[in-house]
């Protein structure tokens, strides 16, 4: 009896495995046939990101930028006479699916490079696969540590990113706070359950210490918290000049509301996690004066040349919507890859990855990018934005574009 049951299960399993393998084999042959005939005149670039789930906004905006870049390149005859083709794949904001997607892009679609993921977590999870498969992974959004190098500090050869790193931006912003705004003591509020916030707090603390700003109190909150009365009460007696808030916009807006309610007339500063209209939808007037830094802000009045052209064309094609940072970074990512492929005169990742390493003062629509010796990008300038009352209600306005020097 037992043996029969076991036998049966094995049979079921084998059938399943065969089925799966069968489907696979079939598609495989189609794929190779397709790339056999089309491989000569297209260069495939994969998109890794979410178009559904929690991170859908980051992913779909990156994809929009990538598509625009591919169109621009193809209009001018492509790269090395070949058309750029974007292969898009959605991982639904799930880590395990992200890994599947990368395997599919590399092995089924035979892409030469992958742009993504906009988040640090998934980029870190798939980096070893790109590295061992010799396919370039260029993240247009990952800002955390240990992306372009492994945990033990070894540099990855195929993994790069074109984002403004907090490690670059936060010190520049803190310097501005100390020198231009005269801040001397601050309170730091960390969102304990966000990897982004925990990492950013560390960077801010070091920068604050370097610039002689005293941290008078450190408080922690959770991202889903909605009542901050106790936290603000704890901050109040310290009378800081400002608050460094490293979390996301929903909590940030509500937090500032509580700060103003308790009669503290101070503003907060934070990273691009605060970048979104939800900030004032939650905080109302209380967030006026709050400052957020980011790697790109579409401000047609300040933009010049390439960037101005990019903003105009994007908003024209999207009913007047301004491109955000993810659109610009997605656009730049594809352009960086295209320039590297041109410089190497080859679409072989083994060859053109060497050209990515050499990028210096590369002019993109989101600013200038230099890939440093440690493979990390140095991006300039840092845009410091401030919430102000505009004609159509509250909006972000560029307060300063702080240049960064290597």
């Amino acid at each position, binding site marked *: 009896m*037992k043996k029969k049951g*076991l036998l*049966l299960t094995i049979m*079921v399993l084998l059938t399943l495995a065969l089925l*799966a393998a069968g489907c696979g084999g079939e598609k495989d042959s189609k794929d190779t046939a397709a790339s056999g005939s089309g491989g000569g005149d297209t260069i495939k670039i994969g998109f890794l990101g979410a*178009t*559904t789930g929690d991170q859908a906004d980051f992913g779909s905006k990156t994809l929009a930028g990538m598509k625009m870049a591919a169109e621009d390149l193809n209009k001018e005859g492509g790269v090395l006479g070949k058309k750029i083709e974007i292969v*898009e794949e959605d991982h639904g904001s799930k880590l*395990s699916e992200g*890994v599947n997607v990368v395997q599919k892009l590399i092995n089924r679609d035979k892409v030469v490079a992958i742009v993504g993921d906009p988040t640090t977590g998934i980029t870190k999870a798939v980096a070893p696969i790109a590295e061992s498969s010799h396919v370039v992974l260029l993240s247009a959004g990952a800002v955390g540590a240990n992306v372009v190098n492994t945990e033990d500090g070894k540099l990855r050869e195929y993994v790069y990113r074109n984002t403004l790193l907090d490690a670059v931006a936060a010190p520049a912003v803190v310097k501005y706070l100390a020198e231009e705004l005269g801040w001397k003591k601050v309170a730091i509020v960390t969102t304990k359950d966000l990897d982004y916030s925990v990492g950013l707090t560390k960077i801010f603390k070091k920068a604050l210490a370097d610039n002689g700003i005293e941290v008078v109190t450190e408080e922690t909150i959770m991202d889903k918290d909605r009542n901050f009365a106790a936290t603000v009460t704890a901050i109040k007696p310290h009378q800081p000049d400002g608050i460094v808030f490293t979390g996301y916009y929903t909590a940030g807006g509500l937090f500032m509301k509580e700060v103003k309610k308790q009669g503290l007339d101070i503003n907060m500063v934070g990273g691009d996690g605060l970048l979104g209209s939800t900030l004032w939808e939650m905080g109302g007037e209380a967030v006026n004066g709050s400052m957020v830094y980011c790697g790109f802000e579409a401000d047609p009045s300040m933009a010049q040349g390439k960037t101005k052209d990019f903003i105009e064309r994007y908003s024209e094609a999207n009913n007047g919507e301004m491109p955000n940072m993810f659109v610009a970074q997605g656009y730049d990512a594809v352009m960086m890859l295209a320039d590297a492929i041109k410089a190497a005169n080859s679409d072989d990742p083994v060859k053109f990855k060497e050209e990515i390493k050499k990028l210096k003062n590369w002019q993109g629509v989101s600013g200038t990018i230099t890939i440093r010796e440690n493979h990390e990008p140095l991006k300039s300038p840092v845009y410091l934005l401030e919430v102000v009352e505009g004609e159509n209600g509250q909006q972000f306005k560029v307060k300063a574009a702080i240049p960064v020097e290597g």
Partner: protein
Amino acid sequence: MSAFLESILDPYYIQVLTLLGVYIIAALGLNLITGVTGMFSFGHAAYFAVGAYGAAILTVKYQFPFYGALLAGGIMAALAAVIIGFPALRLTGDYLGIVTLGFGEIIRVVFLNLDITGGALGLAGIAKESSIVLVYTLVLVTIYVMYALQNSRFGRALVAIREDDIAAEAMGINISAYKIKAFAIGCFFAGVAGALYAHLLLFLNPTDFGFAKSFEFLCFVVLGGLGSIPGVILGTSVLTLAPEFLRSLSDYRMLIYGALMVLMMIFRPNGLLGGVDLQRLVFKNKYKSQAGRSTAAGG
């Protein structure tokens, strides 16, 4: 063997199928708890996480050999199950469901706040150890153990508890002891699966082990057929592979996935293979009398 498979399957399929194997092991563990014993558990992902983090920390931070860590991951999950089981398993039905849900969240939040797990930053730098051959060998071992368990005195006692706990107690079955044992064994397999998952994905993040994952496991078991081992395997396979093979439909794939679930529940409310006795179907005449008995044992 591994090399042979790699030569005929591309890494994408190996990845998808290996992950499927991992899920099958975890789902079979849950089947023992929910399907056979009738205890609702909404916290299975938490034990999966205990195994994943436990094993990964042992191999990454303490340079444990992988196989030792695999076993340790399972044992840690079983221990967690026993500790939580003592107070929780006094409850039955919906109440137990809610308590397991609560404990599942507690475990996740603990991982989020510990330093050794890397908190929200996640745990990276795990070595790749889970090969497709190893995973499917363990799937076969799990299936064998589950069959042996279900067809033993122990398994029949569990079914008796599921069907009528008062009657079972009257027959001299120590209900709490059996329940905790079943819970621990089910969670042991979740822990082993978790350890394999960690050494397959190479990166762990607490957000990955939330309620959604527990719910996914429960769907595998319920849609496949509560208490039916082939059913659970089929349910897991359909629900894991469908979203992957529907990729070509891009935006519509999750829509179809949802519709698939609705249809399955309408047409097969007991699950795909719930109430179907494969042995009876295949060996109709020869084993008729025996098949009758195995229905009672295997559900």
